[in-house]
Structures are given as C-alpha cells and as structure tokens.
C-alpha cells in the first residue's frame, strides 16, 4: 500500500499517542494525504484536478445543505422558495449562485480530470479499479446534477424532467410503466419533485463514499505520473505533505479566482433564462436543451433519427447515449498498449486530440436546435466517438511503435538517474 521509504506516523504528543491506540484516524490521514503518502515528483498541473474535484464536492454539499434549509419541495411553492432564497434570505443569493455555478465548476474540473486520464493512460493496470470507480462517480454526478436542476421547478426544470424520464419509456414493454413508476404519475408533478429532492440530498453522500473508495484504490499502487513509468526508487517520489499540499493550495487559489468571477460577475451565463419562468405543463419552451455538461451526450441521443432493423430510433438514441459512457468501463481492456502515457505514444496522441475535437463538435451540436446541419454533424461525430473507443484504440495499441521511455521518473526529470547508472554495476550479470 505504500513504498518502503515512506515516512512512518510517529505521534509525539501523549494525547495523539493515546488517540493512535484507540482510533488511529490521524494515522489514516497522515498516510493518505500527509507526509506518509509518497507521490511521483513529476506531476504536472493536470494532477491538481482530482483534488479540485474533491473541493467541488465539499463546496456543493455545504451550499446544498444550506439551500435545503430554505427550500420546500412542493410544486405550489418550490419556485417561490428559490426566489425567496435569492431575494429575502441573508446571503441566499450567494448560496444559490455558488451552488448552481458550483455544479458547472464541478463538471469542468471532472471533464479535465477524465481527459487527463485518457491522455496519460491513467485507466491502465494496475489502476483499472480507480478508473471504474471514477466512471461510477461520473454517472452518479450526472444523476445528481439532473435532479438538482429539476428542483427550482422552472420551465427548463419541468421539461428537463419530462424529457429525461421519457428516455426510460423507450425501453420495450416495461418502458411506460417504468416511467410512471419513476415519476409517481403520468407527468412530472409533486410526487416526482419530492423524490428528486430526497435523492438529490442523498446522492452527494453516496458520491462521497465512492470517492473514498476511488482514493483508496488509487493509494494501493500509488499515483500515476506524466511519464507513465512506475515509481522505482526513493528519488522518484516526494511526500504528499508538504509538496503536493502546497501545489493543491495553489490550485485552490487559481480555481477560486475563476469560480468567484463566475459567481459574482456572470452567475447566469451558464443557465437558461427560461428557468426563471415557473413550470408550465401546457407549453414546452421553444428551444429545450439540458445543462451544458450534458450536451455531448444529448447530441448522441438526438443523432438517431431512423429506425435500425427492428430497433426504434428512440431506443437506439437512448442506448447510444448511455453506451457513450458505458464504453469507458471497457477502456482498460480496449487499450492494450503497455505504454501508459500519451507523451510516448505518437499515434495515440493524435487520435486523442481528434477525440477532444470530436467531443467539442458534439458539445456544440448538443446545444444547438434539432435541425440540419446539426443533426447530420452529430451523426458523424457520434459515429467517430464510438469508432475511437471500439476500433481506433484497439488498432492503434496493436500497431503503434511507441517512443523510447525514460528509465525512471528521476531520469525524466533530471536527465540522469544515478541509481540507474549504479544499478547494473551493483547487480551481477544474470
């Protein structure tokens, strides 16, 4: 679980010694995020985003619990209690804007975190479980964000709830009863609003639990690094405290500047004006789109307009949308290249950037109206998306000739590794 040269927790104060015997939480913290956790010395700024994701989760839980103190999950008053929070509750506007923009910030951070994983092959052995748990967290985040967006009971809330629960009606035979079971009625109403509130409160704590598993699974092999070369000796690592605590502190500062800029100067930029209109079951907004972080997947959903054999277009769209994330679960086994980092994979690197571009195209199409040319563009982009994971990655990992890897992290950083030079002399010829 830890490298042999990692520092040991040695409490000096009698109280801490007593604590260490009875309930060794300080030891756990020391070994997890303190001086006892040895981390590769060469992590770049992309490695700050895991920590920032944790920060966002805490931010969302704190502001969310406060929002819940002023909110009532009843269709008659839900919209008004949000407005009351904004106008009458002391600092209520700050809590709501921080919570709404906090969701967006969370997704910005998590997308960078995921694409960091794509580029540096963080999903590969021995860290498959870290990756799988990460995908679970992402799915839980999407469910939580969706249900949170329903709570203000504005027009976008209502129609978002209707469209997303409508996805389940695509399932053959059980679809419609399932949708009515999810909603507790024929259309989103009080029953649906109440259960969404209950689950929106619950799921962040489930996420917190899976995050702990995610970190636990990570700390068994230890953190990956930009070279993808595993830690070999003491000169490859530095202790998490103080080195990466300081660096993550820097990340908090940078994040806080951008986050505060959004909260204080353009808090509604990422929202939809229609959600300031109370929900009206009789009228769908002219241009209905989900929140920006769902756009790439929404574009895939809408890309299917023709029936395929016996499968209706609607079901195909739903399967493809969920499949777009489910395929991530198989990534550790689709990518057979033994080289982790994209920095040493010239061919994979090119396709990585094409995937980024493809996601941006899907993003753009998902936010656009359901009309040409966006439908055709999203069809092509969706096709490429699946081809990337199911065809391109397996082929590239089979035919690619990777660049030579450094012997060690130390050599990659310092240009030479004294221990590596000494090693062949020290070890007798085999």
């Amino acid at each position: 679980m830890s490298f042999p040269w990692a520092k040991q927790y040695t409490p000096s104060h009698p109280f801490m010694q007593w604590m260490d015997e009875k309930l060794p939480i300080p030891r756990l913290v020391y070994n997890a995020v303190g001086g006892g956790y040895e981390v590769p010395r060469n992590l770049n700024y992309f490695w700050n985003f895991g920590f920032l994701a944790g920060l966002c989760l805490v931010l969302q839980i704190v502001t969310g619990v406060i929002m819940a103190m002023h909110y009532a999950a009843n269709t008659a008053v839900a919209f008004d209690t949000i407005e009351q929070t904004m106008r009458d509750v002391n600092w209520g506007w700050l809590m709501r804007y921080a919570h709404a923009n906090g969701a967006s910030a969370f997704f910005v951070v998590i997308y960078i975190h995921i694409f960091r994983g794509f580029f540096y092959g963080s999903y590969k052995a021995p860290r498959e479980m870290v990756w799988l748990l990460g995908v679970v967290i992402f799915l839980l985040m999407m469910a939580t964000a969706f249900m949170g967006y329903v709570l203000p009971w504005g027009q976008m809330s209502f129609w978002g709830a209707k469209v997303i629960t409508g996805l389940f009606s695509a399932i053959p035979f059980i679809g419609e009863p399932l949708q009515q079971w999810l909603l507790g009625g024929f259309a989103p109403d009080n029953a649906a609003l109440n259960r969404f509130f209950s689950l929106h409160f619950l799921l962040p704590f489930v996420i917190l639990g899976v995050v702990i598993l995610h970190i636990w699974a990570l700390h068994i092999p230890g953190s990956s690094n930009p070279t993808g070369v595993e830690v070999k000796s003491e000169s490859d690592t530095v202790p998490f405290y103080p080195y990466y605590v300081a660096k993550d502190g820097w990340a908090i500062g940078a994040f806080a500047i951008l986050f505060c800029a959004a909260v204080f100067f353009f808090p509604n930029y990422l929202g939809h004006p229609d959600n300031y209109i109370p929900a009206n079951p009789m009228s769908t907004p002219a241009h209905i789109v989900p929140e920006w972080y769902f756009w790439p997947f929404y574009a895939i959903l809408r890309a299917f307009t023709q029936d395929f054999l016996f499968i209706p277009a609607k079901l195909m769209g739903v399967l493809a949308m969920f499949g777009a994330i489910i395929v991530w679960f198989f990534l550790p086994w689709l990518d057979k290249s033994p080289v982790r980092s994209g920095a040493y994979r010239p061919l994979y690197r090119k396709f990585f950037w094409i995937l980024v571009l493809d996601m941006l195209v899907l993003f753009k199409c998902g936010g656009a109206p359901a009309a040409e040319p966006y439908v055709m563009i999203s069809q092509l982009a969706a096709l490429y998306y699946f081809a990337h994971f199911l065809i391109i990655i397996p082929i590239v990992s089979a035919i690619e000739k990777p660049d030579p890897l450094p012997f060690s992290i130390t050599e990659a950083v310092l240009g030479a590794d004294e221990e590596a030079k000494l090693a062949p002399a020290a070890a007798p010829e085999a």
Partner: protein
Amino acid sequence: MAEADGVRRRDFINIAAVSAAGVAGVGVVVPLVSQMSASADVLAASSTEVDISSIQPGQAIKAIFRKQPVFVRNLTPHEIEEANKVDVSSLRDPQTLEERTKEGKENWLITMGVCTHLGCVPLGAGEGEPRGEFGGYFCPCHGSSYDTAARIRKGPAPKNLEVPAYEFSTDTVVKIG
C-alpha cells in the same frame, strides 16, 4: 434418524432460517418499490369535459387531461384529404384517419399533446404556431413532425400522437377519459 442421511438438525434449521429471511427480504422490497408508483389520488379517475362549439375548421385548442395537454382539432376538408392521401403501409405507425377519429366525426382529431419521443408538447395547436412540413404538429425538442392525422412522419418519435379514450356527450361537448 436424519443424521444417517447426512442432514443434521442444525443444517435443517440453518436452511429454514436463511430461507425464511430471504422470503421476508423479498416481502420487504415490495412496499419499498411499490410506494414509488402513482398514488391513489393521482390515479383517481379523472375525466375532462371540453366544449368544442367555438373551434372553427383549421383551429385547435389545448385541454388538460391527467395534468397533460390534449389537442382538440377541427380539421378542414383539405386536411382530411391530405391525411387520406397517404399510403398507410408507408407509415412508421400505420393507422388511417378513420381509425383515429369517431365515426361521422372525422373532422374532430383528438389526441394527447405529448410527443411520443420524450414527452414534449408539440407545436401546432396554438394560433400561429408552426405545424411542421406535414401540416399537423411539430415538436421543437427533437424535430418530430406529425401529419394532419397526428401520425408520426419524420423525426425520432416512434408512434403517432396517442388518441385518448373519449366520447361525444353532445355534438359540442367531448368527455375525455
């Protein structure tokens, strides 16, 4: 006695206890799952009466049934002709206009105003709303177009707009539900 067959008293008690706990566990799940279904007040039979006397040919109104919109549309002879011209076998959800209306009242097209794709309210019932390229209804969410019999013609929706159960109470009043 039983020990000669290799079944001890303790094995029997073990299996019986675990089985009982399993059955009880399934029993506990039933209310936990069932509580999420529509409650009695939501299911309580609701019907809506709609006065259609003021709807002119070519016009439509939106009524409310089960908290969802219902479109009541008075088709023009031209629209009926358009609907009947279509080769039914070419449709995604083959139905004739006759099958979707009441006998002798073919001009009264009464459907749910709920797109069969993901449940948006299609445009076309309100004054001045776009009716899509087939002259019926157009769903702006994902671009499904319905024709003048409210049948799906283009876009991702799998089925025609649903025709709810209804009857004409009088010539000018429709009872939906």
